[in-house]
């Protein structure tokens, strides 16, 4: 077990260094780094100072080391637009994105699992075919267009929900959360639904396949023979078995939801890191782009690591198989 964790830790460290090298090469080595790191209106004196500070006259590997040292200290430069530290700028916006992603994840589970089980139980009937075709539609819906159409319907035509922004938030541990203030829920609903739709389809597919497989198993037949009610067979025995793949996939999908929040946040003007990234790309605010990239890559690597370790605890076969090659 320890050997497995250590090996995975080593792989994760390698990924982070590899990504840092890529970011370094793409941002610092392509084009003139001074243009990238200095505001366009900087004068000659500031340029000279920056060149000295960055040590651009030194060989590339030395510059990379400096970059790594700064990175380890959490120093990725100051935003051109906000004038404040890029890393703390990202961290300040992170709770809004995480909240959005988590609410969407819960929506996906709550909507997807019952629908998928229902479709699996009635796979030959119109319900099953309807749900499965619906899930393909869910896969195919362009996310941003769905968001725009929801704004059009619920905000512009029906005037039930606000069109964008975060609205009221409650404070917990010094961080702002919409869930804590019921006045903020309407603002959260549409972005979370939009972000969830794709994952709902995914959960439906997993639950459908799992249910169809589980219903043919001996333990289900045995439970039936024992005279258990269908509700108990499905709610306890089948559900437990189909949850394993769903939990694994959703753990990995949390990262992709954070990435996809870029789109949802842009449509609904949700003040998270995704919106910040798009704004920074539009304004060429490169320190913020670099900071976003490093932080999000770090988060992904951690999530992947956590899922792998959890999975190896839950299922010893993974550990053994990984040791095999």
């Amino acid at each position, binding site marked *: 077990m320890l050997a497995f964790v250590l090996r995975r830790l080593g792989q994760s460290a390698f990924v982070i260094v590899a990504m840092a090298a890529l970011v370094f090469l793409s941002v610092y080595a392509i084009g003139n780094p001074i243009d990238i790191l200095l505001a366009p209106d900087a004068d000659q004196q500031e340029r000279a100072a920056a060149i000295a500070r960055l040590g651009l006259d030194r060989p590339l590997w030395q510059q990379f080391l400096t970059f790594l040292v700064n990175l380890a200290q959490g120093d990725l430069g100051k935003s051109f637009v906000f004038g404040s530290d890029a890393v703390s700028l990202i961290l300040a916006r992170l709770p809004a994105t995480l909240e959005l992603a988590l609410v969407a994840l819960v929506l996906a589970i709550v909507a997807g699992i019952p629908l998928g089980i229902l479709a699996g139980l009635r796979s030959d009937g119109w319900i099953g075919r309807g749900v499965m075709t619906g899930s393909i539609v869910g896969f195919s819906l*362009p996310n*941003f267009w769905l968001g*725009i*159409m929801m704004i059009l319907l619920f905000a*512009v035509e029906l005037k039930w929900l606000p069109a964008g922004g975060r609205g009221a938030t409650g404070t917990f541990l010094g961080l702002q959360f919409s869930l804590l203030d019921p006045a903020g829920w309407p603002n959260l609903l549409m972005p979370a639904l939009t972000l969830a739709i794709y994952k709902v389809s995914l959960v439906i597919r997993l639950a459908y396949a799992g249910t169809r497989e589980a219903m043919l198993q001996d333990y289900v037949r045995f439970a039936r023979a024992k005279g258990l009610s269908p509700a108990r067979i499905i709610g306890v025995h089948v559900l437990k078995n189909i949850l394993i793949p769903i939990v694994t996939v959703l753990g990995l999908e949390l990262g992709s939801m954070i*990435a*996809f929040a*870029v789109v949802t946040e842009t449509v609904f003007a949700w003040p998270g890191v995704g919106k910040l990234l798009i704004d920074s*790309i539009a304004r060429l605010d490169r320190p913020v782009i670099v900071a976003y990239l490093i932080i999000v890559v770090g988060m992904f690597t951690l999530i992947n690591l956590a899922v792998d370790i959890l999975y190896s605890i839950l299922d010893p076969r993974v550990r053994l198989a990984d040791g095999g090659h």
Partner: protein
Amino acid sequence: MAGSLERGAGAAEPVPAVESPFRRFAADYSANGIALAALLTVVVLALLAILAPWIAPQNPYDLTQISIFDNMLSPSERSLEGKLFLLGTDDQGRDMLSAMIYGLKLSLFVGAASTAIALAVGVSLGVVAAYFGGLIDSVIMRLVDLQLSFPAILIALILLALLGKGVDKVILALTLVQWAYYARTVRGNALVERRREYIEAAHCLALPRRRIIFRHLLPNCMAPLIVVATVQVAHAISLEATLSFLGVGVPITEPSLGLLIANGYKYILSGKYWVSFFPGLLLLATILSINLVGDHLRDLLNPRLKR
């Protein structure tokens, strides 16, 4: 277009005197009504895109055909000169229907081109990794793992933020995020195929390695790739639209469906729905029909479900 519809249905008729594999596959495929309709939709959309210059009521890139006085006309409204705009006009006075047909052309082109290039790159690397094994395999597959552990949208977004806008750059970015899927799929297959007798026979004939890999091993690993590639075209089209919506995709001079939607986003709050609604509907129809075809192909080509 009616001609192509009839031809598609004719091939489906299950009365073959000689049962060729293709005919049987066509008959199997057509047994599902939804899948057949989806395939026909894909064919119609592709024809629409190819024939865009002849079908579209106006050339949306030709400034002499566009009048700014016709801007933001609602669907079925007539301009001052009495010209009819079936789906309305955008803020430049462009006919939405024409802009959509040209946008569809660009979206399909980007999706198909990036998938084709990624397929070639990914398949070559995957089959080479499986054939040689060892260090080459490790290096290629670690790259695949690295690539697949990050969402495609994030990688493409960052690449384009660094590279800038442009159709060629979008294709490059989409290629870079797609190749790993093919490499992994083909490698899994090739690992099995590599141990088959015909590869051993080819070795005994002392055929050159390149010939063995690309003429013997590769063609036998292609079947599952058809499904992956079909779904990936839809994925690439969707991704391109998303990137263009975010402002890092195709340039404003060559609007794809995604950019048309982004263009209409500004007018949503004033209730002018048509600039976003119709291109989105076309985009949805395109992606959905390709996905339905892919879904049905997966069922048909899955050996475990073979009758």
